[in-house]
């Protein structure tokens, strides 16, 4: 008997050993083996359609989605509320910074402001504030500025490093005077997906964070339209979709309930993306 045959015969021994243990004969074994094979294939199919069905199950979904709160609390526990995202040097910057989401705004008033270099435009700050404001771009540019070179991480998986400049959001909120009930800051944007305007929200931990700025300058140039002119939120410890572009109006709110779908952002409401995007 060649080595190959020997090993083959041992191969056959394996299962028959087990079948003897459970008192089964050779004929039954083959049936069982076939059954097992069919079972594995069937189970594979079941797993596949099963996962999709489980994905639609409200109970399981809410269990899986509850991990979001765990992410936020655990990250804030170990991070500390003021920990800074890493800042880079000019040599680390991406040669090309990919523009994502909406790259153009169709709205007529927006196009007119764009043509005028946003000289007649102003940012509206309202909601739960003591002094509702309309801040012209020139005023935002004249406020004390923060410049940061940070890495932008898209939820899709890509990253780009760019330089951003603008006033800290906390300064703007100080000017308006947040009322004590305010818990969330909502950004209303000029771009639309279909008929729905883009919107995003963050809580005060991120709103008052030193790196959270309203950027009007990117890589040393006024923010281009594709990247959200005239103003884009930078909230560096979260994923790209939180960084609202084309910010027109800032609203302080006590709750996200009543804001469109109630989950706090366009992608959160339309596609079950998580509101806390630190991971």
């Amino acid at each position, binding site marked *: 008997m060649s080595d190959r045959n020997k090993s083959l015969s041992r191969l056959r021994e394996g299962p028959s*050993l087990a079948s003897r243990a459970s008192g089964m004969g050779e004929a039954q074994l083959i049936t069982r083996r076939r059954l097992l094979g069919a079972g594995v294939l069937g189970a594979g199919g079941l797993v596949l359609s099963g996962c999709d069905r489980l994905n639609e199950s409200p109970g399981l979904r809410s269990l899986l989605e509850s991990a979001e709160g765990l992410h936020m609390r655990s990250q804030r526990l170990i991070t500390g509320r003021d920990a800074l995202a890493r800042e880079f040097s000019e040599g680390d910057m991406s040669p090309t910074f990919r523009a994502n989401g909406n790259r153009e705004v169709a709205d007529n008033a927006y196009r007119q402001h764009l043509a005028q270099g946003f000289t007649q435009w102003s940012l509206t700050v309202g909601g739960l504030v003591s002094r509702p404001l309309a801040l012209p771009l020139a005023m935002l540019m004249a406020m004390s500025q923060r410049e940061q070179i940070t890495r932008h991480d898209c939820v899709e*998986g890509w990253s780009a490093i760019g330089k951003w400049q603008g006033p800290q959001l906390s300064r703007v909120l100080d000017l308006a005077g947040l009322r004590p009930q305010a818990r969330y800051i909502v950004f209303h944007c000029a771009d639309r997906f279909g008929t729905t305007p883009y919107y995003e929200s963050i809580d005060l931990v991120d709103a008052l964070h030193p790196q959270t700025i309203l950027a009007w300058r990117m890589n040393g140039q006024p923010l281009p339209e594709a990247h959200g002119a005239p103003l884009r939120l930078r909230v560096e410890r979260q994923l790209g979709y939180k960084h609202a572009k084309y910010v027109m109006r800032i609203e302080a709110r006590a709750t996200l309930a009543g804001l469109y779908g109630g989950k706090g952002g366009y992608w959160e409401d339309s596609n079950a993306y998580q509101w806390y995007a630190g991971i």
Partner: protein
Amino acid sequence: MNKAGAEADAEGLKGGDLVRRHRLSTRVWHWVNAVTVIVMLMSGLMIFNAHPRLYWGEYGANADPAWLEIGGTRAGQGMLRIGGLTIETTGVLGVWTDGEGVVRRRAFPGWATIPSKYNLADARIWHLAFAWVLALGLLLYLLWSLVNGHVRRDLHITRGEWRPSRIWHDLKEHAGLRFPTGSAALRYNILQKLAYAGVIFVLLPVMILTGLAMSPGMNASWPLLTEIWGGRQSARSIHFIAAFGLVAFAVVHILMVVLAGPINEIRSMVTGWYRLPKERAG
């Protein structure tokens, strides 16, 4: 009888004896982890589909050079490109037909992803929830295995086992499908130890750490966690490579279970009881 693993060695057991092989902690973790790794892999492949390119360094997007890319040509062929090597993968990667007969231009096919249709938000919900099960499960299992001596008794590789001649011998025995019999089958050989220790101490921790390294929140907490991999995009690449290391392990692992006698092997991982393989005649 609650002797487990190598402890039972000294008691003169022979082929055909039924012995208690795997502890409850090992069995529970094995199956929880098996389900978790499958969910992580399938939801991870869906997440990869959102941007089917891999880079080295801190940044990387469409304009930057990718070392790995899965995509399709205009002519409708699926392509996998690794460095300078391009492989046509039509039907499996890049361009494939879904269950309803629709041709899809995504990297990994629907049968390999959770959910089966393109949905990044849902894949992330699965992936990031099961990440907790993976990480906490591994942590508890490791701690418990240190406490109960599983690591020291069954996984620890002795100096003698590192001898090249010994490794070569075990390699030949495995390649010839001559698996240990009798009480020798109770002990893991060097190849098994390397495979199991490689998964528990290297691949799974690398998966978890590179996963955390991609989180912008964690990046602010522990910048080193990202920097040790050479940047976020490097961490993403290593995450992908280690995932396929786990796939390779699973393939060999399942193959070995089938070759060694699947019913006995699976029973031992379900109930703990294992029948020692009979000594070979001659």
